[in-house]
């Protein structure tokens, strides 16, 4: 396996060693994963890798011809940056194919301490224009940037031509409505932040209650949605909530949808994008297998110049509905 030169690289989520094996066996060119602590942006209970697990996972992946990208993409805590530095050191020691970083200080550390370690710029860095990307490339020799989900396909094409590094874009899974890495909505409601704690709308602060014929979902003290008891209320991710303004109650930021950019794969390839990323390190093995297989087939069909098979992934999307999100300018 492994993407041939010029081919689109399929980058797949691995929240556990089992998901990592499933992703690779389903056709992932690369998997991304993190250590079991707040150094990565999916710091959820029961997820992620111990040191031993990651070492073995990288050996397994390399044996199978796949790459492992280690996400160390939260922002180190002031006065206690040690865990983040150790995460970079250990990823390098275990022969990770790249680390995915967002913090300037951590990028500076990795570039200086591990000059041969390949650096990818995390979507959490929110590098949304060619000047910002050029800054990271010049300062830290970043080799690839994961683009924020705020850019349209023509903008991605233009930027990919303009920047001196590879670009990677999200094609499936959870969809941030806000620019990644610059959102403290979760922190405002729960005290737990994506940037500092690696969590957004964390389950530890979520509650569901039956109240007078309604089902209510809350994050901290704040109601995120309220539906009649016979309906399903969904997970209360803050930006997908239903809120009230002078115009009435609505999903004012985004409907509970997730990203499915399969129809845009030809356009993304023509835009010069190097890698396609599937979100979902919090997802189980079965989900990862199904999504990775579908995208493997779609990418292979694209390479052969054939139409992508229209396999159904609808059941796997949030709220069972999908969007192309910011890739289409009408979304704005």
């Amino acid at each position, binding site marked *: 396996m492994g993407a041939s030169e010029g081919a689109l690289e399929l980058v797949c989520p691995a929240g556990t060693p089992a998901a990592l094996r499933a992703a690779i066996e389903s056709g992932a060119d690369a998997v991304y994963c993190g250590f079991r602590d707040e150094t990565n942006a999916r710091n959820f209970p029961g997820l992620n890798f111990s040191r031993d697990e990651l070492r073995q996972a990288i050996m397994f992946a390399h044996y199978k011809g796949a790459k492992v990208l280690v996400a160390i993409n939260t922002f180190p805590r002031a006065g206690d940056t040690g865990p983040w530095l150790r995460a970079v050191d250990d990823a390098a020691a275990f022969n990770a194919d790249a680390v995915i970083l967002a913090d300037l200080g951590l990028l500076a550390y990795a570039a200086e301490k591990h000059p041969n370690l390949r650096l990818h710029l995390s979507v959490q860095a929110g590098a949304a224009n060619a000047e910002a990307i050029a800054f990271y490339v010049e300062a830290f020799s970043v080799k690839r940037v994961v683009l924020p989900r705020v850019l349209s396909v023509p903008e991605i094409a233009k930027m990919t031509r303009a920047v001196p590094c590879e670009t990677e874009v999200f094609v499936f899974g959870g969809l941030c409505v806000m620019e990644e890495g610059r959102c403290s909505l979760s922190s405002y409601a729960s005290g737990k932040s994506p940037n500092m704690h690696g969590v957004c709308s964390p389950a530890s602060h979520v509650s569901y209650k039956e109240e007078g014929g309604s089902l209510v979902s809350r994050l901290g003290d704040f109601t995120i949605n309220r539906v009649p008891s016979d309906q399903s209320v969904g997970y209360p991710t803050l930006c997908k909530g239903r809120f009230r303004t*002078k115009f009435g109650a609505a999903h004012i930021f985004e409907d509970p949808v997730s990203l499915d950019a399969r129809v845009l794969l030809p356009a993304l390839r023509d835009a010069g994008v190097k890698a396609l990323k599937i979100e979902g390190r919090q997802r189980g093995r079965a989900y990862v297998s199904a999504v990775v297989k579908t995208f493997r087939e779609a990418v292979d069909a694209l390479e052969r110049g054939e139409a992508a098979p229209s396999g159904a992934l609808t059941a796997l999307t949030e709220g069972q509905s999908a969007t192309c999100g910011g890739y289409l300018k009408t979304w704005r």
Partner: protein
Amino acid sequence: MMPRAITLTMGPVLFNWPAEQWRDFYFRIADEAPVEHVCVGEVVCSRRQPFYNSVIADVVERLERAGKTVLLSSLALPTLDRELRSESALRESSQMIEANDISMLRLLRPRPHAIGPLVNVYNERTAQFLAAHGAARICLPPELPLASIEAIAKAIPETAVEVWAFGRAPLAISARCYHARLHGRMKDSCQFVCDQDPDGLPVATVDDQKFLTVNGVQTLSHTYCCLLNEVAALADVGAASLRLSPHTVDMVAIAQLFRDVADRRREPQSALTALRAICPGVDLSNGFIHGDVGARFVTA
């Protein structure tokens, strides 16, 4: 060692105010507010920039004549060529630029500059990196707790560390305009409906809890962050400056309260009572600096 006297900075107006109101606000700040630094410039939406072009020179001149140091604030999320060109043009000005996006760092090098609160500075390593690349001032993200502010300030003694001390906290920025979306419009044909909400458009939960505020592509807190109780602690940990973010309330009076507390001419509790009278109906918060839920007001 006696901590340096803490200074005050008036942040940029984040909302879409009519040009005349915007100009008169800054004129009054120039004439009356006890602040050392004043940030001027559109941060949230480039579509609003043309409105201020006719008055910005007068505003800068009036502020400088009054002895204020002017910082020109850059856009938070430039993605279009036209936006990058206007960012680039900021370099031609004689005032210090406040960078609100990493793209400015490359454009500004090696000129001394300020880092705005929308750039992620979470730790001393990042602060040191930025200081080494010319950051003379850094306004930290509003969600940082006091311990982080202390560690950062200690690590960069030559750089002025500023803390978000008054006003709705900026919580998120997006490519999507929520004002336009709520009005059933597209961003590119928004008809500038954000001008209807000079302090932002209130967003409540469906249970009518006041929660957030929409300001075009930006989302802010419903509460006004207020760190009057924390002024002394911030001075102790080495914060050089407090940022006051403009609202339609009497910002001169707000600045005076912070000045009086910083100078120990007034007890924080008494200043807080006065501030609540200046901002009737406004809910306050200080949770972030206490490492708590950001929306809360923690009484020590």
